[in-house]
């Protein structure tokens, strides 16, 4: 379960940073909020990049299916990217109400997205991809930068 374990850890790390940014917004400390938000945005986008450039193509090649789960996941990545843009604007404008409102949508969207990946997609990857390919995919993902 090396894929599941690695990717789940990244999801949880993003949740923690997201919660920290939200806390700073609630406290009115926008400098720290911005710092944490940038970290969250970078980590999330890097995580998507790892999936889109390495894990998903491996899965698609193996299953011969580019119109299934990976298509839905990529569509949802676009939704999250759109929200990140709006949240960045809110944190820059120090608009806490707008930020917290967007944070609500982001959290539900992201959590149900993660749930699908963890319960199905990663589990399928761990089950179907041969061990050596999994290991090399994992190494490629670890090396991906923004």
């Amino acid at each position, binding site marked *: 379960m090396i894929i599941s374990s690695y990717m789940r850890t990244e999801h949880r790390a993003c949740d923690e940073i997201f919660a920290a940014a939200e806390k700073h917004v609630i406290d009115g400390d926008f400098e720290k909020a911005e710092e944490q938000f940038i970290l969250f945005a970078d980590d999330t986008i890097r995580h998507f990049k790892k999936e889109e450039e390495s894990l998903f193509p491996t899965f698609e090649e193996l299953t011969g299916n580019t119109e*299934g789960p990976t298509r839905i996941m990529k*569509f949802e990545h676009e939704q999250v990217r759109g929200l990140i843009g709006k949240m960045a604007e809110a944190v820059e404008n120090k608009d806490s109400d707008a930020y917290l409102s967007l944070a609500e*949508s982001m*959290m*539900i969207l992201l959590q*149900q997205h993660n749930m699908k990946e963890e319960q199905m997609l990663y589990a399928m990857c761990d089950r179907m991809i041969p061990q050596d390919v999994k290991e090399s995919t994992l190494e490629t993902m670890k090396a991906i930068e923004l």
Partner: protein
Amino acid sequence: MFSQGGLSLEQAPPISVVMKFFITASLFGLILGLYLLASSSGLLTYSAYAYNVTITHFLALGVMASFMLGALFQMLPVIAGVVIKMPSKKSMVVHVLLMVGVFLQLFAFNTSISLLYLFSAIILGSALLHATTLMIKELIKVQDHSSSSKGMLLSLSSFTIAIVFGIYLLLTLGGYISGDAFTQVKEAHYSFALFGWVALLIVSVSFQVVEMFYVTPKYPTIMSKYLVTAIVMLLVLKLIALFISLPTVGIDLILALLFIAYGIITLHRLYRRKRPTSDATVWFWRLGMGLLIVSMFITALGTVTSIDQGLKSISYLAFIGFALSIVFAMNYKIVPFLTWFHLSNQGYMEAPMMHDVIHPKKAKIHFYIHIAMLVTWTLSILFNLPMIDIVASLLVVLSFGWLLYHLIFAVRKYNYTQKHTEKIEW
């Protein structure tokens, strides 16, 4: 292949499916409040029996079943990866029959006209059995059940049993069958309805949404894996015990203790949540769990010692408060999210943000109204003063009226965005 779906464009039912159930539930709550007001101010006089069954069923079916079926139509694709085909058409059949059935039952209880019992049994039975069977049929197909999807399946199965028993009771009251097992069936009916349907569905959904909405640690595996099965097994044992005339207090005690354990663990999850927000929905969850613990503590006490009617009434009130608190918490998350989600997925760049649909401050006001309502009903039980009854009834009207107003506001906002703002084609 990707059966563990989620809230994607292809799978989410139209927003109208959910909203019509939620609005109807609030409307039923409002009517219930007016009925209570008319009774407490002496405008309507009924026998204690008619009053009690009317309130119980208006609340259980008109309010709770409407909310919970609406939420299930929405949540089955998200939580269980189950897609109900033609959701608009199927939900409309359930919705219309349920509305008619609830009113027929109300008139049956208050007039005791035989034919009304028959019609309400047929119409309510058709509405609810149609809903449960179509959902169970899809849930059974799920290959890898999560604790939530398994719980949903078991709670819908419990609801089906409660409905069948309910039909038996209505037909007995109408004089269509002899009803030899009336007492046992009545006890089994409300045990399956309250513990097996309402409480179990909340438990099942919480295993996923508490973690998802508030980023909490996971529930202990032993609880998420075995609690729902244990509750259903205990209910089945209770049913057998009732029919072979064995005492059921031991089963009731274990059930109450299991729900207390669940309530404490959920409160602990919420305490350890990573998200710092303490919006109204967090408070509704905390209150709901607190009330579940109170209700079940009194139930447990009642199994080991004799307790007076006042304490029993407080236990019922706490259970109602628990169920309503969770339903309100879910409403204030689901409705703003779905409004934003559907509009932004349709390409409306000016889709209102969640706080623009229902602001958390409005939900917080509802929380205070809800608390005031529960406190005044408790005072009403303790002191039995007509003036307190009137205030408590007014607060029921205000509570559901407040929610109804905000649901209608959300629908208007949705329609306005669709009609008056720019849409981008994906």
